[in-house]
């Protein structure tokens, strides 16, 4: 597809990609307009999709400038006053609402790293150890399903199961036991949201791990069995080392996401449980900005949150390299 038609006709079987770089030899003497005339159908095909990406990703990203403004919706970005870094002072002034949101965010991230992250690894090991493919596939189809339900549905399902008139409490009461108070109880809230995440996404998250497990060289297992390794020792010495790169990679990505936890999930349950325990940085930005009208301050919090996330990924990736792991990318 590199040369003109005549050239191609004269070489019936052109070696594709002679340079091996994925790109053809450079075309000579084609001006900008000539290339535009040649390529405009392709560019037109790209245009609508690119426009959406530019407007709703890049232009929107530019909207973060209101973090440096005393933004007033009726004035717009153009006429609102510029206030420098004033909005960012909330990060350091010890504002109790902000600190509460930050503390909850970090706590929930910690809970998720400890309890949610290992769950699919364990489940994948369990599925992988099944001898029968039929059983394995049946279990997979059941456990993948909750991933495709919206958070609204998941929260509603949990309420119907665990709420005052829910399935569990009905069962307990009909057997003469006392009911349990979970929904709307701040003390049980973190256990509740952690189990919701596990219920929704553990099955789905096994996909990646299972893909990696299937890539591990079978002969390693054969050899270790010959040397007398039990099933448990094989997991420890063959399987887990094989999974290490993907685990490190996912931990890095998780770290980058550590300041954004379960936005929809928490927003949906704030009314029931109160903002004290359920306010995280994302809900803080929404509640104070869009609802409360503190646009500039909220945008500042959102901006810092995004930057910190990016820096965390870069740093974690660097550390992974220093530890000899592949990481997410290599620059």
């Amino acid at each position: 597809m590199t040369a003109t038609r005549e050239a191609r006709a004269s070489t019936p079987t052109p070696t594709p990609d002679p340079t091996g770089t994925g790109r053809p030899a450079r075309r000579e003497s084609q001006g900008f307009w000539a290339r535009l005339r040649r390529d405009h159908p392709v560019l037109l095909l790209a245009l609508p999709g690119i426009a959406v990406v530019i407007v709703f990703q890049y232009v929107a990203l530019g909207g973060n400038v209101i973090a440096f403004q005393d933004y007033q919706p009726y004035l717009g970005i153009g006429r609102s006053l510029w206030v420098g870094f004033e909005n960012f002072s909330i990060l350091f002034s010890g504002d109790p609402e902000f600190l509460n949101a930050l503390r909850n965010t970090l706590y929930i991230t910690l809970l998720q790293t400890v309890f949610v992250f290992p769950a699919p690894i364990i489940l994948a090991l369990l599925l992988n150890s099944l001898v029968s493919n039929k059983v394995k596939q049946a279990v997979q189809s059941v456990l993948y399903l909750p991933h495709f339900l919206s958070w609204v549905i998941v929260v509603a399902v949990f309420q119907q199961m665990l709420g005052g008139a829910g399935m569990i409490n009905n069962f307990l009461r009909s057997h003469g036991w006392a009911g349990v108070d979970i929904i709307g109880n701040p003390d049980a809230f973190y256990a509740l949201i952690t189990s919701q995440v596990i219920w929704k996404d553990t099955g789905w998250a096994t996909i990646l791990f299972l893909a990696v497990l299937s890539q591990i060289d079978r002969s390693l297992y054969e050899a270790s069995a010959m040397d007398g390794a039990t099933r448990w020792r094989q997991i420890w010495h063959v399987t887990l080392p094989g999974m290490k790169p993907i685990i490190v990679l996912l931990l890095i990505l998780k770290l980058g996401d550590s300041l954004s936890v379960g936005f929809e999930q928490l927003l949906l349950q704030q009314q029931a449980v109160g903002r004290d325990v359920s306010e995280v940085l994302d809900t803080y930005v929404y509640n104070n900005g869009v609802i409360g009208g503190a646009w500039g301050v909220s945008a500042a919090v959102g901006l810092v949150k995004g930057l910190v996330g990016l820096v965390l990924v870069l740093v974690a990736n660097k550390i992974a390299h220093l530890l000899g792991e592949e990481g997410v990318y290599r620059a």
Partner: protein
Amino acid sequence: MSTITTPRRRKTGRGTLIDGVPRPSRVESVIKAIVLTIACGLVILPFVGIISTSLAPAEQVNRAGGFVLLPEGIDLTAYASILTGGVVTRALLVSVGVTAVGTVLSLTLTAMLGWALSRRQTMGNRQLLLLVLVSLLFNPGIIPSYLVVQQLGMLDTLSAIIVPTAVSAFNVIVVRAFFVGLPQEVMDSARIDGAGEWKLFWYMGLPLARPVLAVVGLFYGVGYWNAFFNAMLYLSDSSLWPLQLVLRTYVVDGTQLGAQDLGAEASLPPQTTIQMAILVISIIPILIVYPFLQRHFAKGMLTGAVKG
């Protein structure tokens, strides 16, 4: 992807090896069976309860104080009352419409962009690809996104819950990876025969890409059906609400659904029954597409993404 090949068994001095792993002991097998049964039960049981309660006769629901695991009979009044006009019916129509229009739009834009990005010799190709890839790395944030939608005058229109999420960079990359993987000789010969770019895209690219577009389309569809926050953010007019927002208001927050909300004169079945019926209606489309999703996602999505 992973589980297609049958395990290789081999007898050795140390007992049977299955794919190099010793046979599990009895105890281990029993424990695994119990764990997996419980896990599957935790997923299936809630659905059974919800469907049962939505179908159970009012008298049984009242007696049980809310939740029913096995209906004593089939009573469809709850469905009849929410599907014959009123808030839920309208929301259902909105959701169906948004999902249909959104999925078609998304697929069109994604296929076009994916194809264009796969033509690696065109001008600006690397720059455009980079533009799409970099957008995967950041999220503009709630407030900036809101401002853009506001500036475009899309607040309180259904376009606000379609257009901003119309192009998923990830899906574009998946589709592009597919097109890049197509044998270029075929394309070249079509081009020699005089096919222009549009013809090539329409008569070769699209038909060949049908499997990958099916998967991507299903994912877009599920996304539109499930979209909740954007609707909440951009639509203050409750007559435009999709099903997820109605679900939030009347099921999660527990706002009472009165007869006037449903446009019904007769007395309504118990609230729990109605809530469960709304829940069932919002889950059913997912259950319908799930088998198709499941058949495709493992091989289609992941391999495409990894190779890209």
